[in-house]
């Protein structure tokens, strides 16, 4: 067991829309150890991106807020931290990389300016020093001829290169935690592998803990050490990567793994999970997976299961384990 660098307890993040309250994250617990990669898996709408934004403090106040819960980082609760303090942490101690490299970089500012900005703001360097550090960072992420890149604009780079720039910006100040929200989903398959490899290498080098959010089990199998499975705003299973893939306990996890086409022989039917992703809030006090679970019993409808420790660090939220 390593040192816990980030700990989330009972996080509830609700959005307030014209049609009602959307509880995107509804009681999430997770722990991140120093230097490890935690993969968060789940379908679209399960709240994983919202959880990431909540940790970063990037939930727009006009749309929603963190209703309850604690996010403990280096002894402080990020939920209650004043904005000024949070800004110092963002980009320096906890950073984020987003899904769409196409639109995540400012089209009218140079690459150099956007990366150097991080050094200027957080390390107080002047423009020239910041640019020198930027060149170092850009070559660290594998961009050829970084000096030329400084004056280029995002539209002149390919998707993979842009994502490398994003990573450079995020890791510039050697943060303790890097949150990568579907960093490869918008990229070509070959580029995906390169980016994952890059993230891994940098993690080794800088000792950064990584939260890797994805809906792709292949990515998780490749890159993560621990896996957290999310469903309808909560964690339903947590284990190291082998535990999840070899011994899935939660019916949802089992269903996910079974749906991967690779297992079947030619001509066999694919295993499909019945039902569709629930809307946040669509449950009535019982287990949220109840409508789609093939093992469901009466108790599942009325009582929501807690995360039980099955031994060896393997947690599962189901009544029947």
């Amino acid at each position, binding site marked *: 067991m390593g040192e816990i660098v980030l700990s989330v307890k009972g996080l509830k993040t609700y959005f307030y829309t014209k049609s009602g309250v959307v509880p995107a994250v509804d009681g999430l617990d997770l722990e991140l150890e120093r230097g490890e990669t935690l993969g968060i898996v789940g379908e679209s709408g399960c709240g994983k991106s919202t959880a990431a934004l909540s940790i*970063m403090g*990037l939930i727009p106040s*006009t749309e929603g807020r963190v209703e309850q819960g604690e996010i403990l980082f280096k002894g402080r609760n990020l939920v209650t931290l004043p904005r000024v303090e949070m*800004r*110092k*942490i*963002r*980009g*320096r101690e906890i*950073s*984020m990389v*987003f899904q*769409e490299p196409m*639109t*995540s*970089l*400012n*089209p*009218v*500012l*140079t690459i150099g300016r956007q990366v150097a*900005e*991080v050094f200027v*703001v*957080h390390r107080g360097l002047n423009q020239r020093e910041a640019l020198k550090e930027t060149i170092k960072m850009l070559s660290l992420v594998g961009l050829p001829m970084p000096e030329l890149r400084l004056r280029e*604009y995002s*539209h*002149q*780079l*390919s998707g*993979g*290169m842009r994502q490398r720039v*994003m990573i450079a*910006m995020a890791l510039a100040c050697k943060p303790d935690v890097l949150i990568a929200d579907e960093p490869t989903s918008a990229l070509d398959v070959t*580029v995906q592998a390169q980016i994952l490899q890059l993230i891994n290498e940098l993690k080794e080098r800088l000792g950064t803990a990584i939260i890797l959010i994805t809906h792709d089990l292949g990515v998780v199998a490749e890159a993560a050490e621990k896996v957290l499975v999310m469903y309808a705003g909560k964690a339903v299973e947590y284990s190291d990567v082998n535990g999840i893939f070899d011994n899935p306990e939660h019916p949802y996890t089992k269903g996910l793994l079974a749906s991967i086409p690779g297992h079947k022989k030619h001509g066999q039917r694919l295993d499909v999970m019945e039902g569709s992703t629930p809307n946040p809030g669509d449950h009535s006090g019982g287990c949220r997976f109840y409508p789609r679970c093939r093992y469901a019993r009466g108790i599942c409808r009325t009582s929501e299961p807690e995360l039980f420790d099955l031994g060896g660090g393997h947690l599962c939220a189901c009544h029947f384990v």
Partner: protein
Amino acid sequence: MTNYVFRRLLAVIPVIVGVIAVVFILTSIVPGDPARLMVGQRGDPATIQKLREDLGLNRPLWQQFIDFFKGVVTLDLGRSYRTRMPVIQAIAERLPITARLALASMALAVTSGVTLGMVAALKQNSMLDYGSMIAALIGISAPSFWVGIMLVVLFCVQLRWIPGTGTGDGSWIYLVLPALTLGMRPAALIARLTRSGMLEVLGQDYIRTARSKGLTEKAVIIGHALKNAMIPVITVVGTGMAEMLGGAIVVEKLFSLPGVGRLGIEAILNRDFAIIRGQVLFMALIFVVTNLLVDLSYPLFDPRIKYGRTWRRE
């Protein structure tokens, strides 16, 4: 980049030719004989004939057009039928006033419009937002000359803060009301555009990225959002300036300013077609040139246009 500049310049030429042609046709199809109209009913035929000779009205139409065209290219727009002063000179005399008015109005419009629009966007859906946008709508809908009159009633008659209309002793105070009047509509348009542009930009992913880097909100808005949001505003400023040079007619009449617009009205009343031709042409060409300059300035603001769509694969 040079490709872009070149193409824009090339595209402008046929338009300029068209403009010259239209202006010429416009002033040539006027019913009646210009010479007779100028001399009046009681002029004797001999004078009228001489005048026609002088003005080259007896030559075939297409030849008059060639003359006119040649003149334009050499910046000789002919002479006023009335005063025999070169048209260019007549315009040049009046231009400074109009230009000063246009600049003052636009400066006012941009500063107030951008500020109002930004505040409205940042405090979206607040009372301030609704209030500003309603004010902007009224600003677009109210006739400028009427607003000018109301301002005169308020500031000259009732409050006596401003001495009067006209250029007076030349001090800047005489520009205040005209600039407010002329600048009101562009200010309203700019405010609306800034607000919508800002709102759209603030919803973009790269703003979220900027925030995730730990920048202050001020740095995000000024450093990241503003430049993107301003791009459509530039167009409005450009076309607004050009419109002002043409729309100052009304304001100049209202405030008795001896500008280019007034020149045009006098010329129309005096049936001085040379001046009318010259002036309309002048206004139109300024319009075209201003738009061209605006187009050419885009690359400064939007690098995507500057560097085209060259892509490099990894």
